[in-house]
């Protein structure tokens, strides 16, 4: 009998290299090694940001201190909160991402429903134009909009961001319309037809039958929309500058704002702007999104399954 077919050896082989039914130890070890390595690459900037942000000025100067600060120094955060004018900018960011997102999602669902449920001429043209709105870079349309807003006195007014969202032209609107199109097209038509036979109007069918049936699509679209609006800075800077200051807008002029509060000539060396303060500002900037992500993570990681989007 071949030694390799001895039962004990065979069992060991299964354990190490796996069989048809399960992965072996080596495969598992390789799998976790790769996953942990990639996970580290992803987390490294975040860890770096956090660790740097709690370093005291002494730790920053000390070359021995790399990843483990000698103390948990909160001074940077106190400065960061002041420089970012946190309570105001946080509020502004929340309003300027939640309000346009809600409008954008509602409009996208109406348009997506129309595209999925009705037959009419020119539908393929609408899809081409939808793709075009996704492709056209913002700088190809933003200047005339800005000049028009200026003439209307709307520059710096929240309406400058809300109006496009209200008319289905919000940030990445095309994606949300396609999400709703996919969701509604895969939802069976039978229920709606029987309701229509009972005399329900189109609007009633949409509101009472269609909307509740694709609720996950609403939730997923809403949270993605909030995140994208929150992180958007190109349009917000152009449209809201001078009126509303969101968190990312304030972060992008952090150095300037810091030197206004702590003029370089007058403060002692420990109060000068250093990378620890900058990193605390950056961390404060993403903290609300991180909190939201960890609370709603199921909706992010399972969004595709929930909306049935597959990319056709």
């Amino acid at each position, binding site marked *: 009998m071949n030694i390799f077919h001895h039962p004990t050896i065979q069992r060991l082989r299964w354990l190490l290299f796996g069989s048809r039914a399960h992965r072996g130890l080596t495969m598992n070890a390789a799998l976790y090694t790769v996953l942990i390595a990639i996970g580290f690459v992803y987390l490294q900037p975040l860890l770096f940001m956090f660790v740097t942000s709690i370093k005291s000025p002494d730790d920053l100067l000390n070359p021995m201190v790399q990843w483990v600060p000698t103390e948990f120094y909160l001074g940077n955060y106190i400065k960061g909160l002041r420089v970012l004018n946190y309570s105001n900018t946080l509020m502004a960011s929340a309003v300027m991402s939640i309000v346009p997102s809600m409008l954008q999602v509602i409009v996208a669902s109406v348009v997506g429903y*129309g595209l999925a449920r009705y037959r009419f001429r020119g539908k393929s043209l609408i899809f081409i134009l939808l793709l075009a709105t996704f492709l056209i870079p913002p700088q190809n349309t933003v200047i005339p909009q800005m000049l028009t807003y200026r003439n209307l006195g709307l520059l710096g007014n929240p309406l400058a961001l809300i109006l496009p969202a209200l008319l289905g032209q919000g940030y990445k609107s095309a994606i949300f319309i396609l999400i709703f199109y996919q969701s509604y097209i895969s939802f069976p038509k039978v229920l709606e037809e029987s309701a229509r036979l009972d005399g329900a109007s189109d609007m009633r069918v949409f509101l009472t039958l269609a909307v509740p049936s694709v609720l996950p699509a609403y939730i997923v679209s809403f949270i993605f929309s909030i995140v994208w609006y929150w992180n958007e800075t190109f349009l917000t800077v152009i449209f809201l500058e001078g009126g509303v200051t969101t968190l990312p807008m304030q972060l992008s002029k952090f150095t300037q704002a810091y030197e206004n509060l702590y003029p370089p000539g007058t403060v002692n060396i420990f109060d000068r702007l250093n990378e620890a303060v900058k990193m605390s500002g950056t961390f404060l900037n993403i903290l609300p999104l991180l909190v939201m992500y960890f609370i709603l993570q199921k909706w992010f990681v399972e969004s595709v399954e929930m909306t049935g989007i597959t990319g056709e």
Partner: protein
Amino acid sequence: MTGYSPRREISLRTREALHGYGFILIWVVGFLLFTLLPLIETFRYSLNQVTVTTANINLNFVEWANYTRALFTDPNFIELLIGYTIETLVSVPIVLIFAMIIAMFLNLKFKFKGLFRVIFFLPIVITSGPVIKELTAQGAAAVPGIGNIPAVIEFLEQLPRALRTPVEYLLTSFILILWFSGVQILIYLASLQKVDRSIYEAAAIDGASSWATFWKIILPSLSTATVVNAIYTIVSLSHFSENKVIRYIYDRTYDVQGGIGYASAMAFIYFGVMIILLTIVYLFLRQWARRGTN
């Protein structure tokens, strides 16, 4: 009203179409007002010397002068465009391959899968212009430590210039590139989950190795998702607010000399380059997908 006039009788078909138009009307109005009109207006600016005063906007028709200036006179713009093209062509395959690998991992069954998923989708939440800018400024976007290894620096110095730029970009921005793959992982994962498990089993019973299974079953089933992901990657890289070309165009907008007209012309050239890149990548992937299925 008793009886009905034939004129008011609309066919069911037309009624359905009218209701359909009713649902999309709001979008059509928005498209005209916020996309088409500004796009045409920007194109008009690009053919003019634009001066903005507090009261109104003065246009002075200059034909294609803004375009020739961008393409032949301005040394920065072409340099930036070339840089953008190289960076995009380097980033797209990395994002695609990386997203595909991660998606295949996440499609397996293993312990702590939830934890790894949470980590891998984190970039969706935090990838914003100012955050990336601060992180890159602190060197947190580079592969840790690799830029300082003497051997690496020496290796870079010996490369020809045409090769050095992409490799250098790769080393300094690797994490950044990976951070642009969150949504793409989601799309790949969805496609993988649609593949019927019984196909894998059938392949295994027929004695196909996992290597063969990947090339013959998994990869072809991901071809549509790959095209979608490639387009999504190019668009999100091109629209990213810290993109150097966009920053340059934005800065030029406020120039006293040229200003808006010149910036508009550059915006259109940039858009054109982006469309060319999209077309090249699209045709390339379609070709590849066809060969895969035959």
